[in-house]
C-alpha cells in the first residue's frame, strides 16, 4: 500500500536557450509507507516542491515511474488514476492558492463534499468535525480567502484536504507561514492525524528542526540527487 518513486527524473525546457534542458533531479528513488513520514530537505530551488508535485501526479516525470499501491500510475485506467489522485493530496507552501478567491470558504468545503458524494444534510456535521480537528471556529466559513490571515488559511487548507480522507499528503513547507506556537500545534495535529488515520507524509521543509521532529527518515536533494540519511 505504499507510494513510491522509482528512478524519477524531471527536466524543464530552458526558456532562453533553444533545445537546452535544465535537470531538476534524476535517478531519484524513494518509498513512503502508510503512517510514515519521509522528511525532505534541500536548499531553495533544489527541486523539493517539484518532486512533491511529480509524486502526487500533478506533473509527469521526464523519466522513471511513480507507483501507488505497487502500480505504475502511468499505466492506470481512469478509475484507478482518479483514486490515486484523490488519495494523494498536496498541501502547498502558499495556502491562499488552495481556495477559489470568488467563493466563501464554506462554499469551497461544500463543493469538495459534493464531489465525493457526501449528502447535503450530512455535510454540516462533517465540516464542523474537521474545523474542530484543525482548531478553527465556524465563523470563518462565511469569509472569502482574502479575508483570512496566512495561518488561518493554512489550517483551512489542511481541513479541505482532510475532507477527502487521503492516504498520503505531500506537505510542502506547511508551517512556514505560521507563528511558532501555531506551527507547534499543527505539527502535533499532523502527528495525531497520522496515528489515527495512518496517513503517510512527504514532509518538505528548510527547517531542519521541524523535519527531525516530524520524520522517521530524512533525505536531502543535493545537485539533483536524493541523499537519504543512513543509506550509502
Amino acid at each position: 500500500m505504499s507510494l513510491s518513486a522509482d528512478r524519477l527524473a524531471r527536466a524543464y525546457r530552458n526558456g532562453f536557450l533553444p533545445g537546452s534542458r535544465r535537470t531538476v533531479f534524476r535517478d531519484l528513488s524513494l518509498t513512503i509507507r502508510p503512517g510514515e513520514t519521509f522528511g525532505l530537505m534541500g536548499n531553495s530551488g533544489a527541486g523539493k516542491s517539484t518532486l512533491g508535485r511529480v509524486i502526487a501526479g500533478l506533473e509527469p516525470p521526464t523519466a522513471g515511474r511513480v507507483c501507488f499501491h505497487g502500480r505504475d500510475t502511468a499505466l492506470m485506467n481512469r478509475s484507478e488514476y482518479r483514486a490515486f489522485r484523490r488519495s494523494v493530496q498536496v498541501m502547498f507552501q502558499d495556502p491562499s492558492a488552495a481556495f477559489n478567491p470568488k467563493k466563501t470558504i464554506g462554499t469551497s468545503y461544500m463543493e469538495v463534499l459534493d464531489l465525493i458524494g457526501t449528502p447535503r444534510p450530512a455535510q454540516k456535521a462533517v465540516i464542523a468535525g474537521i474545523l474542530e480537528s484543525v482548531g478553527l471556529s465556524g465563523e470563518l466559513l462565511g469569509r472569502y480567502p482574502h479575508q483570512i490571515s496566512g495561518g488561518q488559511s493554512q489550517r483551512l487548507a489542511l481541513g479541505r484536504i482532510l475532507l477527502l480522507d487521503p492516504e498520503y499528503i505531500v506537505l510542502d513547507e506547511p508551517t512556514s507561514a505560521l507563528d511558532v506556537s501555531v506551527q507547534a500545534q499543527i505539527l502535533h495535529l499532523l502527528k495525531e492525524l497520522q496515528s489515527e488515520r495512518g496517513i503517510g507524509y512527504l514532509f518538505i521543509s528548510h527547517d531542519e528542526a521541524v523535519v527531525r521532529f516530524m520524520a522517521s527518515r530524512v533525505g536531502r536533494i543535493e545537485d539533483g540527487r536524493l541523499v537519504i540519511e543512513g543509506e550509502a
Partner: protein
Amino acid sequence: MNPVLEIDALSVTFCGKQAVHAVDRVSFSLGGGEILALVGETGCGKSVIAHAVMGLLPGEAQVSGRIVFKGRDLLALSERERSAMRGKDCAIVFQDPSRALNPVHRIGRQIAEPVLIHGAGSREEAHRRAAALLERMGLSPPGNYLPLYPCQSSGGMNQRFLIAASTILDPSLVIADEPTKGLDPGRVREVEDELVRLTGGGRTALLLITHDLAVARRIADRIAVMYAGEIVELAENDAFFDRPSHPYSRGLLQSLPEHGFVPIPGSSPSPVSPPPGCRFQARCRDGKAVCGGQHPDLVSAADGRMVRCWQCR
C-alpha cells in the same frame, strides 16, 4: 530626534456581514535607523497594520487613530497624496517575491521602475541608480544581474532584488512582511544582511513583520508582540528574549524547537466578538478571576518594557 513613524491608538475594523475587529488601539513609534520586529499569532493583525500604514486596506476597512509619518498624519491625506508617497518615501516588501516580481521583465528594469514612476529621473539615470544600488548590496558587477529574468535566479536572490526595487528611492520607512519566509538558512542570512544594511545609515526605519523569532532576535532593536489585535508586550530585544514577561510571549518562546515544540493550548478568540477581559485569559496558566472581568491596559514595567497583563504588575 523625531520618530519616523508614530502610530497612536490605531484601530482597524472590517465591516462585512460581521464586523471583524482586526487591530485594536495599537500604538508604537519607530525612529530612523531602528528595526522594530512585530511578532505574534497568525491572524493577530500584523499585516493589517502594515497595510494601514501603506494605505492599502480595502474599502470595507474602517480605520481610526493616527498614523504620523515624518510629522504628517497619513489618515488625513487624500488618496492621491498617499499614492505619491507609496514606494517613494515609505515602501513595503511583500513576502512572496515570485509573485511581486514580474516574470516577463528583466530585473534591472524592475529595480529601476520606481524611479520612472515617481518621475525621479530619466531612463539612464534610473538604470545608473539600479546599478549603483546592486553594487552597494555587494552584487557586483551589476551587469551580471541586471539582465536576468526572475526565473533565472533563486528565491533568495529575488527577495533581495525585490528589496532593491522597494528601496531604490531611499525611503525613510520600509515595512517588510515576512521577508524571509520559505528561504533556506543561507538565503535568510542574505536577506537579514540586506535589511541591516538598509537601516545602517541611521535614516531609514524598518518595521519587520516575522514569524521567525531567530531573525527578530538577530537583527531587531525592539520586539512588539501582538495577540488578538493588541500589542501585549513591547520590549528591548535582549530583555524580551532573556525574560519574556507576558504569558503569551512566554508561551511563544516555549513553542520553539529548542524547547521541544510545546504549543500554547487552545486558540485565539474570535475577532468578531473579543472577550471583555484579558484576551489571552482562556489560554493562560497564570490567569485569575480578575483577568476575565476587566480589560488590562498596556503599562510600563519597572525595566521600561510595556506589558498588558494583570498578573505581571
